[in-house]
């Protein structure tokens, strides 16, 4: 193919941002993500009540002036709990994914770069690992380590890491034999330097997309674990736990499950939209 020289791959951060900006859905996703982050950081200032402030006189009220989204059976303000709940959901989602990414990048880059027997051993271990259903694994880990924030993070992180490792290994295989890697070896660069400067930066784009998308998944997972009583423990507010608590009053007070459900849905959707947009923005070939 001739021409279009100037349209060849554009991989700089500026170019990615430029392309991301054009995708309206991705921008919406990004705005929601930023809003969520701000909410969780500013929770003490924007929440009308404290998350554990009980008001026995007004338990299980519907949305009204004092309590915009109503209260739960202990008379706690649902809006405030949702706002504080975003802290937990985001913290666990982000940290769990970050942990998974670290493990995944280390295993994936070693397996992909060295190949051969190292690759074989690592991949077979992951094979065995991935035979265990993820949800079961998560529940087992959470049960074994005990409930709580840190343990939830570890459970989710360990469970999602193999997927990242595989993805990175696959992209590294295509980058490993590029001539610029050979050129780096020809100047006697160490394996570590080659992996960090030549290989990983060129293989990371699909992983970034995957990570963004799975933050949504991780939030869902936190909610699920908490819903089952294995995640965050009361009184710390968490969307999944709130959903679980509200379950018994679902018929009469649907707002107790409706609002946490909407929060989970919106935040998962936002991360997925952002991830989808990033995928298109990071891969110039998909551009039309």
């Amino acid at each position, binding site marked *: *193919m*001739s*021409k*279009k*020289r*100037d*349209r060849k791959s554009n991989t700089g951060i500026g170019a990615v941002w430029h392309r991301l900006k054009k995708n309206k859905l991705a921008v919406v996703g990004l705005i929601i993500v930023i809003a969520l982050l701000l909410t969780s950081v500013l929770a003490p200032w924007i929440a009308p009540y404290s998350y554990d402030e009980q008001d026995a006189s007004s338990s299980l009220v519907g949305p009204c002036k004092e309590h915009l989204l109503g209260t739960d059976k202990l008379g706690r303000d649902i809006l405030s709990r949702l706002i504080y709940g975003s802290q937990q959901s985001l913290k666990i989602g982000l940290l769990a994914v970050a942990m998974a990414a670290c493990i995944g990048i280390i295993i994936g880059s070693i397996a992909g770069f060295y190949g051969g027997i190292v690759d074989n051993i690592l991949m077979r271990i992951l094979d065995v690992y991935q035979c265990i259903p993820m949800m079961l694994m998560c529940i087992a880990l959470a049960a074994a380590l005990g409930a709580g924030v840190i343990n939830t993070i570890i459970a989710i992180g360990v469970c999602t890491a193999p997927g990242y490792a595989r993805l990175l290994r696959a992209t590294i295989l295509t980058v490993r034999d590029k001539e610029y890697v050979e050129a780096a070896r020809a100047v006697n660069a160490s394996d570590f330097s080659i992996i960090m400067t030549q290989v990983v930066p060129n293989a990371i784009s699909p992983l970034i997309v995957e990570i963004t998308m799975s933050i949504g998944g991780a939030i869902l997972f936190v909610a699920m674990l908490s819903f089952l009583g294995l995640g965050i423990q009361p009184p710390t507010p968490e969307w999944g736990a709130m959903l679980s608590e509200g379950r018994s009053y679902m018929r009469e007070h649907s707002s107790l499950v409706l609002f946490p459900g909407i929060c989970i849905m919106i935040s998962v959707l936002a991360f997925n939209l952002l991830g989808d947009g990033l995928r298109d923005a990071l891969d110039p070939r998909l551009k*039309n």
Partner: protein
Amino acid sequence: MDNNKLLEIKNLVVQYESDDSVVHAVNGVNLSFRSGETVGLVGETGAGKTTIARSILRILPSPQAEVVSGEILFEGEDLLKLSEKEMRKIRGNKIAMIFQDPMTALNPIERVGDQIAEAISLHNRVTPAEAEERAIKMLEMVGIPGSRYSEYPHQFSGGMKQRVVIAMALACKPELLLADEPTTALDVTIQAQVLELMKALKKQLNSCVLMITHDLGVVASICDSVAVIYAGEIVEYGSLADIFDYASHPYTKGLFASLPKLNSKERRLKPIKGLMPDPTNLPKGCSFCERCGYAKDICREKKPETIEMSPGHYVKCFLIEEVQNG
């Protein structure tokens, strides 16, 4: 104008649109081919060679590429005005194309013979048995034993694959064959075999061939006339002798000077200085003026007209006389 022209391209302009700029790929090209003639289209990467071939077949990438103006008359009919249905009857039948990379032009999971037979039955009313028979004949014509009909592309070497691609292109005896760098991906000895084959087949079928290449050596060995293209414009057109013995455009001359020659003792080549202009931002005047050693003010201000230097030898340059004298 004689009327035995098979194909005539008139003032073709093609542009590619990208986010914030317009790539001027082909800028007012006029070309015509007679039956049985082989025309070489020579130029560098990005000069617009492939775009011209794709415009003829109407397989430009859409929606980025657009034919802005011009006519492509094939047997007197404007291809650009035909409906997609009519065009499909011409594509692969009356006009066929050979692509540069034989590895990607073949379907890896279909037997090669079937791929040729498919091309035949698409445009001819034949029974499957007849199509197969003709496909075997085509394979044998390009020097592949008919017994290899049922093999898959990966069982063939690069040169063999390109032969299959040629057999497929010639299966319907096209009147015009567009060959886009058909030998660039091949080794020299294999290239020589394929070029010989193309020469022989052309004689046999009396097809007209548009040979797109960057290699003047290939042009010398197979073409009857040559069009030199630079930044989307034909800067020189003439017979083989016109171009090789009386090259007149500074660009054509520069091309010849930058080739390492087998029989010269010089220790330095004479490259053309600079680079092709940015196709999104072409100069106002002659597009070669930035790199031209002869350029004067007029070259930067105005686009040169095409001048007929001698019968059939056209040059697009203001300063032909000066260029010839020095």
